[in-house]
Structures are given as structure tokens and as C-alpha cells.
């Protein structure tokens, strides 16, 4: 190991982590150019290459970049949209809203979106990200300020993207995907606001308020970029004298030809993911406007924040008392910049960057903010979810999708899903206790809890 491995967890959460986490966080600690420590967040679990919840920074001038430290779903991320609606206004029309959203936001295997793109237009999406959506009428100009990196990360290079990636992703803009991706209607319950002043800054008015949360990424386009470059790096490693303990950690020097090509393609995919979540936001606004008979602006459907949890980004951090340029890999980990950081939107600079943590479809999610401690200790990073404790197969053995949907409906949560088995795989008991994860982040001060959000409707792939 070149650096120590450091896990952030409470005793009980550490007990729940599978052996794969410890092996994988150790493997990452052996990668060339890694700085300070190989980190894993409290929601960590066995992944491929990096653990899920893994964070590692490499010196840009002498370190590596590894697609296995980002994942195939490049810029998988979370978006939270507020509304002025109250639960008592939405509840009577909830079935209608969920059905309309299920019809407007394609989900599941093989789904296609409504946006049709030429090759040249798709390349604009790769470079402009969510900004591309403004001119097309899929975004409000003010949305951009509330997206990590304004929805457009610098350095996208469409020329480094394969023709196959273009073919695979060109019809998927505005689609949700499958697995743990979802679109959820949520509500603030009494007692769920932990920090009223910060909550107000984030657009949280009080108990009963309805929110919409979105979890998805770059779809087949990003998956193909990851597939293409995993093979490139697997072949290239010997020429740089590199070897890794897990082939999925294939890497190349960041400043090498291969490293720069992947970075350009990966950023192109990241920007496309921002556009994907933006197009879905447009569909959400259309649905709410149609069902409630008012313009989306009149309903207050503004973006609270949109944050990535599968990326590598060039960032400047203090290392041994001096500022250094680092390639910060976050795989199933969220950026959590603290108060005063220039990259935090002006509206939130005083409170810190919003952090959106998705729990399970049964138990809810959380909104937190980044901290100065995160900047000092974790490269401004925190957890991204509750973290699985159970395999998909184990979950399916315990419950069927049909019975879970019926049970959840009796508890007031309406679910529509493209795959019934996919619902069973995402049952609440398959995940760690989100409250325990959020409490741990709060106690360790790598993010600060603001509000908990409870689900009332969910759409899954």
C-alpha cells in the first residue's frame, strides 16, 4: 500500500460492510500517485475495482486515472426539485401524477427517449451539457446555477468518443434506466427538518411540502465510454510499467495519451448525464403543469441542486500545506464542498454545497450540506446513498415485486415499475439504515444534515 486506507463509519455500519470493501479500498491504496489515503464512505459496499463509496485523489502531474474509480455509469447522480405543492394537494391526484410520469419518462430495458439527435447535435450535448437544454426549451436559464459545475464540466472531447457510444446513446436522452435508478415524489414529514435556517435557504418551507427526486446517469452512452476505455487501459498498462491487483482497476497516467483521451470522453459522458437529468426535469414540469393546471413556475418547480456521484474531476486541494492539482475519483460518493468555496452556487455559498443522499424507495432520502471538515479530510466528499447490505438475489428471495408494491401502496407509497423483479431487488431491507448513515456523516462533520424526505410515489426501471 502506498497510503493508508481510511473508512468512515460507525461501529454498526462497519460491521455491516462486506469483506469486499476492505479488499477493494486496499487495492485502491496501491495505485500510483494516490495522495494521502484511500477513502471509503459509510455507505460503502463491494463494487468492482473501487468499492462503492470509494474516494481517491491522484496528483494530476504524476498520478493515474482509472475508469474503475468512476464506474460505467459516468455521472450517475441525484437531482432534487422543490415544489410549492403540499401533500394534501398532491395526495388526491397521486395515482394520476405517477401514471403520467411513468408515461413521460421512459424506464427499463431498451427504453428510448423523445429527443431525436443528429450526430453533430449529440456532440453539442457532450460539450454543453445541461446548457444545451436551455436553447431547446428543456431548461430554465436559472436551473444551471443549481447544478454541480453549472451542468457543464470543462474538457469534454467528443472526438475521443467511439462511434459505438454515439450509436448506443443517441436515442436515450430523457430516459431513467433501471437497477437502483428512480424518480420519486417525496414529502417533508413533521420533525424532519433538522436545521431550519439552512433548510429555508434550500427552498424547504416546512412539513407537508412536496419534492421530486431523480437518480440516473449517462445511460448507454456513458456505459459504452467506460467499456471502450477499460479495454484501452487494460492493453496500455504494460507500456507504462503499471500493474493492478484487480483488472477492473486498469489505469493509465493522467497526462498520458490514453489518460487524456479517456478524460475527454468521460467528461463528454458526464455532461450528457446532466442533459439527461435536465430533459427528465422538463418532462416532470410538463406532467405537474398538466395535472395541476398551472404553469411549472407557478407551482414553484425549481431545481434545488443536481450533484454527481460517479466522476473524476480536476480539483485544487491543499496537500501538505500547499495547493495541488488532483484528479479526484468519486465512485458512489458525492462532492460535498463546504461554505465559502467558489464552486458552490452563490445562493448556497454561505451554507455549503447541497448534498443529496438517496435512500431506499421505502425509507426515504436526505438533504445535507458540505462542510469545511470534508474539504480538509475527504477532498470535499461524502456518501451517496444508504448502501446495500444484501444482494439483489437475497432481496428477491425475501419478497416478490408484486407483494412489495401492494404493501407499499397500503402504506401510502404508490410504485410503478417497468420490471417487477427490479422492485423486489430495491426493497428497503436490502439497504443500510439511511438515518444511521446520515447521523454518521453529521457526527464526523463531513456533511451536515438539513432535512429528511419521505417517499409517497416512486417510478422505477
Amino acid at each position, binding site marked *: 500500500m502506498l497510503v493508508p486506507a481510511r473508512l468512515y463509519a460507525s461501529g454498526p455500519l462497519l460491521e455491516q460492510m*462486506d469483506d*469486499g470493501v476492505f479488499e477493494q479500498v486496499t487495492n485502491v491504496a496501491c495505485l500510483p500517485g494516490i495522495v494521502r489515503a484511500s477513502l471509503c464512505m459509510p455507505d460503502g*459496499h*463491494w*463494487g*468492482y*475495482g473501487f468499492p*462503492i463509496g470509494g474516494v481517491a485523489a491522484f496528483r494530476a502531474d504524476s498520478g493515474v486515472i482509472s475508469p*474503475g474509480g468512476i*464506474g*460505467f*455509469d459516468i455521472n450517475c447522480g441525484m437531482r432534487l426539485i422543490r415544489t410549492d405543492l403540499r401533500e394534501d394537494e398532491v395526495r388526491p391526484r397521486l395515482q394520476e401524477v405517477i401514471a403520467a410520469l411513468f408515461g413521460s419518462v421512459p424506464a*427499463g*430495458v*431498451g*427504453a*428510448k427517449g423523445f429527443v431525436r439527435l443528429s450526430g453533430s447535435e449529440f456532440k453539442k450535448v457532450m460539450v454543453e451539457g445541461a446548457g444545451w437544454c436551455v436553447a431547446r426549451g428543456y431548461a430554465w436559464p436559472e436551473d444551471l446555477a443549481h447544478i454541480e459545475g453549472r451542468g457543464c464540466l470543462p474538457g469534454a472531447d467528443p472526438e475521443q468518443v467511439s462511434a*459505438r457510444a454515439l*450509436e*448506443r*446513446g443517441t436515442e*436515450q436522452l430523457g430516459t431513467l*434506466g*433501471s*437497477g*437502483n435508478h428512480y424518480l420519486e415524489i417525496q414529502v417533508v414529514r413533521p420533525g424532519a427538518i433538522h436545521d431550519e435556517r439552512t433548510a429555508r435557504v434550500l427552498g424547504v418551507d416546512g412539513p407537508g411540502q412536496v419534492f421530486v427526486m431523480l437518480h440516473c446517469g449517462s*445511460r*448507454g452512452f456513458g*456505459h*459504452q465510454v*467506460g*467499456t471502450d476505455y*477499460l*479495454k484501452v487501459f*487494460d492493453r496500455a498498462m504494460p507500456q507504462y510499467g503499471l500493474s493492478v491487483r*484487480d*483488472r*477492473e482497476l*486498469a489505469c493509465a497516467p493522467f497526462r498520458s495519451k490514453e489518460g487524456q483521451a479517456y478524460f475527454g470522453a468521460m467528461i463528454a459522458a458526464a455532461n450528457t448525464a446532466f442533459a439527461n437529468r435536465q430533459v427528465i426535469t422538463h418532462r416532470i414540469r410538463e406532467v405537474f403543469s398538466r395535472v395541476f393546471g398551472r404553469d411549472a413556475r407557478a407551482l414553484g418547480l425549481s431545481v434545488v441542486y443536481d450533484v454527481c456521484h460517479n466522476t473524476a474531476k480536476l480539483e485544487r486541494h491543499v496537500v501538505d500545506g500547499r495547493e495541488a492539482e488532483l484528479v479526484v475519483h468519486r465512485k458512489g460518493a458525492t462532492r460535498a464542498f463546504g461554505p465559502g468555496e467558489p464552486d458552490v452556487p452563490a445562493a448556497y455559498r454561505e451554507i455549503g454545497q447541497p448534498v443529496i443522499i438517496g435512500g431506499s424507495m421505502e425509507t426515504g432520502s436526505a438533504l445535507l450540506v458540505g462542510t469545511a471538515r470534508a474539504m480538509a479530510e475527504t477532498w470535499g466528499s461524502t456518501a451517496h446513498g444508504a448502501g*446495500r*447490505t*444484501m*444482494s*439483489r*438475489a*437475497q432481496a428477491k428471495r425475501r419478497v416478490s415485486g408484486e407483494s412489495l408494491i401492494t404493501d407499499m401502496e397500503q402504506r401510502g407509497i404508490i410504485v410503478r415499475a*417497468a*420490471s*417487477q*423483479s*427490479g422492485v423486489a431487488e430495491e426493497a428497503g431491507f436490502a439497504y443500510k439504515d439511511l438515518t444511521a448513515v446520515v447521523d454518521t456523516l453529521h457526527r464526523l462533520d463531513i456533511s451536515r444534515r438539513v432535512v429528511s424526505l419521505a417517499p409517497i410515489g416512486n417510478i422505477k*426501471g
Partner: protein
Amino acid sequence: MGRYEFLEDMVLADCAVEIEGRSLDDLFETAAAAIARLMVDPATLTITVERAISVEASELDMLLYDWLSEMIFLKDRDSQVFPHARVRVTGNGPYRLAADVHGGTIEPGRTALGADPKAVTLHQFALEPVDGGWRARVVIDI
């Protein structure tokens, strides 16, 4: 056809599958059936599409990687899944695969959907000769 088994508790969020075939051709055919089963219930797929696929790789294991990646690619580009394949593997580095595949287009409301694979990973990826044939282990990101 050979046999495949989803290793249900090997990974938490993803899908691991072990595939065995009496020959390399058999293993690749079985691998296609396995990934199709992961994506849909083949009984709910109308078999209407036939196509020829060729793949080439410098290493034998990467031929399997590319073959499964092709199945995932076709699922996204064309919304098509191919449970049935007749495969011929030739060469000694580079290796070549020629296949005739049979499958169908995903029909919303009729096709029972399973997982939506993102990619084949190289995590614990293995293809090796065993007594009486070949065996592979693959972790798929879903």
C-alpha cells in the same frame, strides 16, 4: 447448450454469472443465453430477428468480453435481445467469432423485463479450460 448459473450472493449490487460449455463455441452460445435471461424473460420475447455478428480480439478472454458487450450494445441501440446463438470461434490470437443470433425486439407491456446491464466488468473476470470443456466467470454491472 452448456449451463449457466447466476452466483446470487457473490456481489451486492451487480450480477455475477458462471458459465460452462463443452467447447468454446458452446460456452459462447451459453453466455448469450445467460445475458439474455438477465435482461428479459425469453418466454415473453417473440423470436423474429436474425442477424450475423462477428467479433475479433487479440486475447481469448477479451473475445468473450466483446461478445457479451455486443449483446448489451444491441439491447440499447436496437432494443433487441438474443437468447439463441450459433457460434464459431476460430484463430489462435487474434481470435475471431462468427455467430448467427436469433432473438426479438423488446415489446413494452408484453416482454417481461429483467435487469438493464450497463457493462461487462473485468472484476474477477475469468475464462479457462476445465475437464470436459470451458468455464467462465463474469461480473456484469447492472
